[in-house]
């Protein structure tokens, strides 16, 4: 519950400003140029860009030195997000690995897993995806049916995942499987690191509403994964998976917020002269400022280790509000009576609908706030 005491906010010290200055010089000298419209080509360019940033020492700055990082605070990562936001390639291709999977492995993984799995994340030589959702396990992850059965030193996996983003070009999957119990129970779930090249893995692209194949269906037929790839203990998967949800928010939301600022700046250029647009643009800018302030607080609390369980649901809900408001307003302010074509603005309008669904829907986030933060009673079954 919120108390009447101010919360911490992210501060940038001299070392952060030094990173910022070096990054600016690097970006000026190595401007990646506009990414290709061709999808596979674009993925290749994005990998090269992350590799270049990594070689210059700008990736994994908040990781411990023993993991190939520099032991800096999350403020350094925030600087990276902010400066990348000014380039033509504002997003890191391997951000699921860097922002979500890496902290999970750092918290739950063995030293061997850290040294095997972390380095490839940094230079984007090994991309990661997250295999949680299944046809009958979306909001209710306890419904997972994909099974793993122990066989000697291996686990043998059978089942199916769906809506798995980036599965097509991923080397690794953070896969949540059932090693025990029946669907409907949080117990008996286990998180494994699966090499997507293992025999028996089939990835089938699934076209999104935008006719882009960003996510896929993934099928498993007798896929063998060594026991050494279990993250945490067998049966601990629920806790391990939920910890990724907490990590996911801080930097991810900051990055999205910066993207929305760019969109708003473009919109201001397009329609800023119109008096009917002034108030709307001002309101959106104010909203984004509050979103930034809130992400700064989340990152500061994450750094201090005082982030309350469930609190990042607020970040997700605020991001959703901002995303849908900015993209909706961009569409309205640019609307033409005969608009039937798909341009960037229509694309964004549609894409914005996914924000209230992925990574825990709006309704689920509100349930989390109700039960974990406000302590509301649950309905008797």
């Amino acid at each position: 519950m919120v108390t009447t005491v101010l919360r911490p906010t992210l501060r940038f010290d001299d070392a952060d400003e030094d990173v910022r200055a070096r990054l600016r010089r690097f970006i000026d000298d190595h401007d990646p140029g506009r990414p290709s419209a061709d999808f596979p080509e674009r993925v290749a360019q994005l990998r090269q860009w992350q590799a270049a940033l990594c070689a210059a020492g700008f990736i994994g700055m908040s990781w411990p030195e023993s993991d190939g990082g520099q032991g800096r605070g999350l403020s350094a990562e925030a600087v990276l997000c902010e400066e990348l936001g000014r380039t033509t390639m504002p997003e890191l291709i391997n951000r699921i690995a860097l922002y979500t999977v890496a902290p999970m492995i750092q918290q739950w993984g063995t030293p061997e897993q850290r040294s095997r799995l972390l380095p490839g994340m940094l230079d984007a030589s090994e991309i990661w995806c997250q295999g949680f959702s299944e046809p009958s396990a979306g909001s209710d992850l306890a419904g997972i049916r994909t099974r793993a059965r122990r066989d000697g030193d291996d686990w043998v996996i059978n089942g199916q995942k769906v809506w798995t983003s980036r599965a097509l070009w991923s080397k690794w999957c953070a896969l949540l499987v059932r090693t025990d119990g029946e669907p409907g129970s949080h117990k008996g779930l286990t998180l494994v690191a699966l090499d997507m090249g293992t025999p028996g893995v089939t990835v089938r692209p699934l076209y999104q509403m935008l006719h882009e194949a960003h996510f896929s269906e993934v099928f498993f037929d007798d896929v063998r994964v060594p026991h050494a790839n279990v993250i945490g203990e067998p049966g601990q998967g629920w806790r391990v998976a939920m910890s990724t949800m907490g990590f996911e928010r801080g930097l991810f939301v900051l990055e999205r917020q910066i993207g929305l600022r760019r969109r708003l700046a473009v919109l201001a250029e397009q329609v800023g002269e119109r008096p009917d647009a002034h108030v709307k643009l001002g309101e959106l800018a104010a909203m984004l400022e509050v979103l930034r302030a809130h992400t700064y607080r989340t990152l500061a609390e994450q750094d201090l280790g005082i982030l309350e369980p469930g609190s990042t649901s607020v970040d997700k809900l605020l991001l959703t509000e901002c995303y849908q408001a900015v993209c909706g307003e961009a569409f309205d302010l640019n609307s033409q009576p005969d608009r039937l074509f798909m341009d960037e603005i229509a694309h964004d309008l549609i894409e914005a609908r996914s924000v209230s669904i992925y990574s825990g829907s709006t309704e689920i986030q509100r349930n989390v706030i109700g039960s974990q933060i406000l302590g509301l009673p649950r309905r008797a079954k």
Partner: protein
Amino acid sequence: MSENQEVVELFADICRDTFDMPRLLELAERDDVPTAGQVKVFVDAGVLGLAVPEDLGGVGLGVNELTEIAMHAGENLLPWHLFAAIFGGVPAIAAAGDDVDDVIGGDVSVALAVRVGDRPSKPELLTWRTSTEPGRVVVIDGPETVDAAAGVEPLPGDTLRVGLEPGQGMLTIGAPAVPSTSAAVPEAAARRIVRIWRLALCAQAWGCANALLERSVAYAKEREQFGAPIATFQAVAHTLADMHVGVAAGLSALGRVSRLIDDGDAAVDRELASLESWLLTRSRRVCEQAVQVHGGTGFTWEQDSRGNWACTCSTAASW
């Protein structure tokens, strides 16, 4: 707890003790200012000098603590003119070079004119003593035209608005009157006072909203319909969660803007304007949602969600 943090806690206690709900309702019913006795409690505790720097005879709280003070003021519906004295009148007259002992002591009251014009980073503040009741403050701000009145010099150029406080939290527009004896607050101090004043208004609105969120959560756990607490109905629970989003994000933004003011960051005016635009509207929404969660009870006089709601509404309207 630091010494300043203790001052914040003490302030919250005094608010709660002096203005409990029956007393607030009584004031509201008469649409009156607090009694001399009630003002005296605050004066005796040195509250009027909270925002005055120590070297000018005040308590010298930092921006963060002042924000927390304003949050408590909002939660406890501190009557408007005490709020205005703490954050506007008293620090202004101190910064203008006047000796503030008698002001902090509640023997005279202060008037304040704020001329923001189109340069929010360069506000002009004029301040003077008045003969109205002790502890009362006249706050003038915003854009509205001044008429010259007898014995009063109109401020040249920019426009002004006067906010007088006849009672509970409501602003009314009155005739501006700036005497020629008024003193100008030096530019840097004026900028800081106006920034803290604007931040405090936001913090006050946040306090109103937070108090109503807390009350709504407690009520929803207790009130039963259809054989279960209404909090178990998802429509109610999700309304409360949405209220929480507003309150939690508002708290984050208050924290950031406070620190930017504290750092003397030049970028703060933009962030302050964003905070005002977003938080005041959102706090009002939270108050409206609170009325809905309380049902018919929320629409009764005793419940006094009205006070909180009116507070955020009037604050929102005044900018």
